[in-house]
């Protein structure tokens, strides 16, 4: 048992103004022997410059293929309570909104069945319950299910979709991110809970091009709010900004990437050249009282985002420039099913969607999934003439 070990290095991390995770482990350690041993194991890692966890094994709960990450220490003799120290991923509510009642329920269940340590939240968005034993998994899940919570994703499945705060608080939201996230997560329960694909798949929803959930970088499918018509300028409010001393020319117009804004400094009037605006959100961010997205709202669908393993990091790219985004989100769901079918049929093991499209080519992908090619899909056309012609395009 490691209970009495000193943890001088960790203790050092209780100093300083930023709230300390070490303090949190210590708080949990009061009630949980596993959390207590985690202090020792971490101190050991700090001494060794090395993690002390083994390659995970497959553990889970009935009816699910994912949602639990098996974890075992490589020092089970010294830290018997960490012999099994699995995490559970609990699917968060849209936009990470909670009532304290609901949060307290989570705390109570987890204190009972696990280490009492959590991540609020995991990088994908789940509530991460950090550390419990194999035996406790099912009882923990059962109680969560009773409390209205379900598992998130892990393995080669859909991961818990996530979304920005959207219409919950933000005037920029071009569609209802919270609702869409909730709706599609329910639609895709089977995909989320039963891994059956070549690899993981992530969906993230941002209400506008500010992309506050980093969808473009972190999701295989990035749904980013936009509008199809022209942004709306309220010149009374423009005047107010100008009179308050804002340098509109320099801060707003000169930084518009397409130079689509003209400021008349004499009358304090701002106009936009509609066909030049690329809807980047900059001017709206700078003058939220004076400029608004247009009226014909919806979202762009981008595909392919992921981090660096294997073929480099990819950011998602435009695949549908504009889609109305309203319940029941049928067009979006249909597209997802088509894409998943295609990926499932063509992808190699552990090949993310973006890597597959890169490998076989966008042309092939578009044809086989049935999407029309549009110039919005590319920054610029190809610099090589290596075109593939289709049977029917050739003179016989």
């Amino acid at each position: 048992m490691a209970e009495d070990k000193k943890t001088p290095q960790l203790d050092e991390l209780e100093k300083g103004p930023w709230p300390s995770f070490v303090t949190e482990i210590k708080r949990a350690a009061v009630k949980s022997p596993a959390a207590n041993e985690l202090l020792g194991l971490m101190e050991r890692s700090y001494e060794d410059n090395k993690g002390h966890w083994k390659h995970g094994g497959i553990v889970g709960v009935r009816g699910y293929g994912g949602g639990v990450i098996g974890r075992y220490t490589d020092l089970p003799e010294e830290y018997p309570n960490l012999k099994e120290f699995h995490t559970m991923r609990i699917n968060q509510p849209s936009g990470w909104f909670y009532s304290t009642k609901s949060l307290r329920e989570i705390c109570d269940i987890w204190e009972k069945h696990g280490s009492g340590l959590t991540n609020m939240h995991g990088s994908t968005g789940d509530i991460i319950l950090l550390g419990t034993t194999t035996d406790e998994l099912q009882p923990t899940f059962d109680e969560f299910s009773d409390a209205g919570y379900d598992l998130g994703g892990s393995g080669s499945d859909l991961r818990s979709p996530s979304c920005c705060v959207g219409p919950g608080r933000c005037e920029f939201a071009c569609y209802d991110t919270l609702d869409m996230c909730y709706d599609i997560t329910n639609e895709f329960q089977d995909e989320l809970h039963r891994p059956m694909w070549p690899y993981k798949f992530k969906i993230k929803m941002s209400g506008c091009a500010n992309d506050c959930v980093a969808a473009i970088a972190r999701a295989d499918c990035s749904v980013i709010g936009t509008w199809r018509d022209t942004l709306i300028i309220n010149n009374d409010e423009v005047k107010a900004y100008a009179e308050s001393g804002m340098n509109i020319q320099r801060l707003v117009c000169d930084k518009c990437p397409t130079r689509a804004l003209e400021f008349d400094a004499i009358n304090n009037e701002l106009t936009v050249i509609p066909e030049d605006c690329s809807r980047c959100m900059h001017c709206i961010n700078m003058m939220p009282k004076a400029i608004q997205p247009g009226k014909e709202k919806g979202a762009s669908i981008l595909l392919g985002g992921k981090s660096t393993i294997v073929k480099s990091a990819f950011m998602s790219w435009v695949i549908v420039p504009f889609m109305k985004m309203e319940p029941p989100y049928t067009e979006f769901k249909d597209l997802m099913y088509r894409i998943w079918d295609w990926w499932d049929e063509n992808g190699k093991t552990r090949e993310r969607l973006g890597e597959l499209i890169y490998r076989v080519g966008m042309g092939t992908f578009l044809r086989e999934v049935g999407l029309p090619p549009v110039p919005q899909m590319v920054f610029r056309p190809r610099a090589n003439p290596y075109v593939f012609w289709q049977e029917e395009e050739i003179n016989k």
Partner: protein
Amino acid sequence: MAKIDIGPPDYKENLPPVIRENYGQWKYHEKVKPGLLKHVANSGDELYTIRVGSPRLVSVDFIRDICALADEYCDGYLRFTSRNNIEFLTGDASKVEPLIEACKAKGLPVGGTGNSLSNIVHTQGWIHCHTPATDASGIVKAVMDDLYEYFGRDDLPAKLRVAMACCLNMCGAVHCSDIAILGVHRTVPTIKHEILQKGAEIPSLVASCPTGAIRPDPKNKSVALKDEKCMYCGNCFTMSPAMDIMDPKNDGVAIMIGGKVSNARTAPSFSRLVIPYLPNNPPRWPEVTEAVRNIVEVWLKNARSGERVGEWVERIGWERFFTLADIPFSDKCIDDYIFSRETFRTSAAFKY
């Protein structure tokens, strides 16, 4: 048996009253001061958001603490942000300052809004993962302690988004961050033949290597490594525990900078490697905190208002950045992977 596939709880039941009443009816917002946003609805209702830092790795007691605050000041509701901060939401202006005071009293930093440093998105590290090249929570704590003032100030040139991932899997999605702190291995995996001989899937292991460094070795029912082709990504270790890549003497941290995600002004962009290696020196990783601070300070000193780190560097040129930041440039910074060619300077125009 418990119900399965019930999906997440309905978000609508978790919305505070002021939001329920003004859902989708927000008119504009103001960034009142660091950590405080004010949103105004078409109805005239006001919503105050108080943003508060969190270590993310928290105990249930921590959650109970913030629940107590939310009960007292916010009708019993709160939310978390996409960067793991806590947001207290209230429609009642009179609650704002008392709440801020209460947070401070509890040691919860208020800030992270507007042009400030927000929380560091990060990962498991030595706390829970099997592939880390470094710890995550420890470095994050050390860096946030060091840069603490910038969380509470919103007069930086632009938002500052730092992320940390403890291995190349990049669960912290560091690849598009203003500053990315990344755990890296630097030596080839040690092959544990006895594990492979027990029946790991050799073909999929061979296929997992991005550079083709792993070859089947049918004689030994194992695999062999072309050392010079390995760039220590660890993907083979993710596939199989037989490819042990931990090396306490050589694992450490790389720094990448200049990424961004938003589409505002400039397109989203990747972070780029400027420091290939710093040693693991727990508990406070002084080399790492110093390197990050240096980059932040050079940016503060030289960037124009409105310029994210990457926007600033792209304006002045990466060659100038290395000079200004006094960071040695090495062959390690030059890409030699699939898309390398697009980074080569195919132009005779450059600065010194």
